[in-house]
């Protein structure tokens, strides 16, 4: 028995786990290093203009090549923000219903459904988005908005194809809802029973008590939101199919655009032809890398601070 447990100070699990831990950590730093070094040529040629201009001159003559991904950065932020506006109310209402209001049997079904949705390959959302959601949104949302609200500047252009920031945002919102609601749901279920009792014991109605308990998990909701934003901004395949893929800095939500990830995915093939494009795509990736890293850390920080503050 004792020999199985330990050989002196030598623990078998140390031996097995350390290399794996080391490998994962090295992989992370290595990837970051590759992104940084591969982006350098683009920065040397164009400086910060890579991020702050909207041009895409792919030329067979390398001297004339010039790239700036501002439109894609704009598109990423725009679509992700729309996604959150869609996902947040959906997730919060869904979670509250599942935890507090749903009958027991329905609860299980709803939980499994959202878990399955979270695990679906994104291309499934993409195809559905391109063939169903885009035409649907065009007919039932974009056209009516254009018909009745075209006096508002951002809605003044007639929607053409339906492939747009808006479609991408809505699709992303649908895609991240299961993730955000998982975080919200978990936080909401872990509210200690004693606070529920406290709320009701003060003569609060169910609605009032729920409102107070939502206040209690608000930071968890914020962090769920942040993590959802991180996922939305990084999502690629589905977005590429519905965003329209055009260099467009417009605030018109119904116009086509790019996101950083859809830009990389669709331009990747061209980078074999053009001399300076690869480095620019790396620079675009680096931007996404850092934004994603920042957002994830921020989300985790908010969640951790909350757990510490409310811990018993």
């Amino acid at each position: 028995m004792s020999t199985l447990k330990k050989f002196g100070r030598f623990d078998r699990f140390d031996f097995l786990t350390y290399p794996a831990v080391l490998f994962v950590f090295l992989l992370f730093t290595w990837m970051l290093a590759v992104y940084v070094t591969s982006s350098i040529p683009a920065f040397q040629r164009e400086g910060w203009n890579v991020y702050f201009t909207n041009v895409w001159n792919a030329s067979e003559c390398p001297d004339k090549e010039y790239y700036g991904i501002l439109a894609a950065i704009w598109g990423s932020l725009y679509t992700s923000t729309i996604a959150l506006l869609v996902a947040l109310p959906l997730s919060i209402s869904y979670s509250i219903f599942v935890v507090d209001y749903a009958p027991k049997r329905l609860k299980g079904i709803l939980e499994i459904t959202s878990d399955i949705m979270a695990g679906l390959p994104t291309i499934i959302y993409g195809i559905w988005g391109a063939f169903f959601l885009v035409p649907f949104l065009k007919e039932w949302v974009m056209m009516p908005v254009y018909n009745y609200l075209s006096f508002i500047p951002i809605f003044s252009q007639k929607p053409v194809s339906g492939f747009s920031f808006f479609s991408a945002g809505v699709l992303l919102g649908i895609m991240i809802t299961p993730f955000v609601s998982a975080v919200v749901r978990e936080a909401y279920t872990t509210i200690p029973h004693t606070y529920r009792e406290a709320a009701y014991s003060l003569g609060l109605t169910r609605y009032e008590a729920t409102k107070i308990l939502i206040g209690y998990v608000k930071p968890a909701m914020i962090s769920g939101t942040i993590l959802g934003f991180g996922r939305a901004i990084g999502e690629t395949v589905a977005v590429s199919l519905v965003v329209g893929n055009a260099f467009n800095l417009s605030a018109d939500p119904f116009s086509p655009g790019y996101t950083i990830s859809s830009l990389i995915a669709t331009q990747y093939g061209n980078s074999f032809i053009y001399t300076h494009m690869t480095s620019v795509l790396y620079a675009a990736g680096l931007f996404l890398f850092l934004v994603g890293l920042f957002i994830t850390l921020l989300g985790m920080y908010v969640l951790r601070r909350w757990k510490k503050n409310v811990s018993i």
Partner: protein
Amino acid sequence: MSESEYAIEVENLNIYYGNNHVIKSINLKIPQKTVFAIMGPSGCGKSTMLRSFNRLLDLNKNVRVNGSVHLFGRDIYTGDMDSVEVRREVGMVFQYPNPFPHLSIYNNIALGLKMNKLVKSDKELDERIEWALKKAGLWEEVKHRLNDYPSGLSGGQRQRLVIARVIAMKPKVIMMDEPTANIDPVGSKKIEDLIFELKKDYTIVLVTHNPAQAARVSDYVAFIYLGELVEAGETGKIFTAPESKLTEKYLTGKLV
């Protein structure tokens, strides 16, 4: 029905958790403005019974309550009163001090007052909160940091904040479910003193697993064992001359 001399009258109370019969045919009369202790070993059903007095058991869908509970003569389970009204009149202090961690000290007390529209103006709200904190003996300790979160308070202070939260609503009955179980001895002493003070104005129902505490603070005591009422009566009498052998064994620490 006319106002009863009893704060709470329990008649043939039976409580079931699913198929589990946890409270068995209990009859009990709790006189007004006294401290009524309900004691018994852990898991005997005393906390469950307490929660039937303010309909907090309604939160659990698996629980069934049979029999009747009257609050000052009004039946709390039939059409006489709805659960919100019951809970407004029967305040509760819990075993774990549970002020809401995301609300300031001030807002913890303001919550019930505002939601139940018990005060008419901000000025009245301020006054009521100060009054309640003074009653709970916490005012001097927190008056300079009413907007702080309760995380900075000690366990005993938090429990007194919960008591202030309850007092502020001016309930008729205050129920306390082992209020000192998670509090250090100094904090416990303060809470026991407070209970003594509060019985001048309120009826207090105290659940405790500590017979010594029941002896110290209560006027009447009921001993519950395995969901049944063994014996109830004046504290002095129960502790000096219990009728039941079971009570005697419990009080002398021989009941496991």
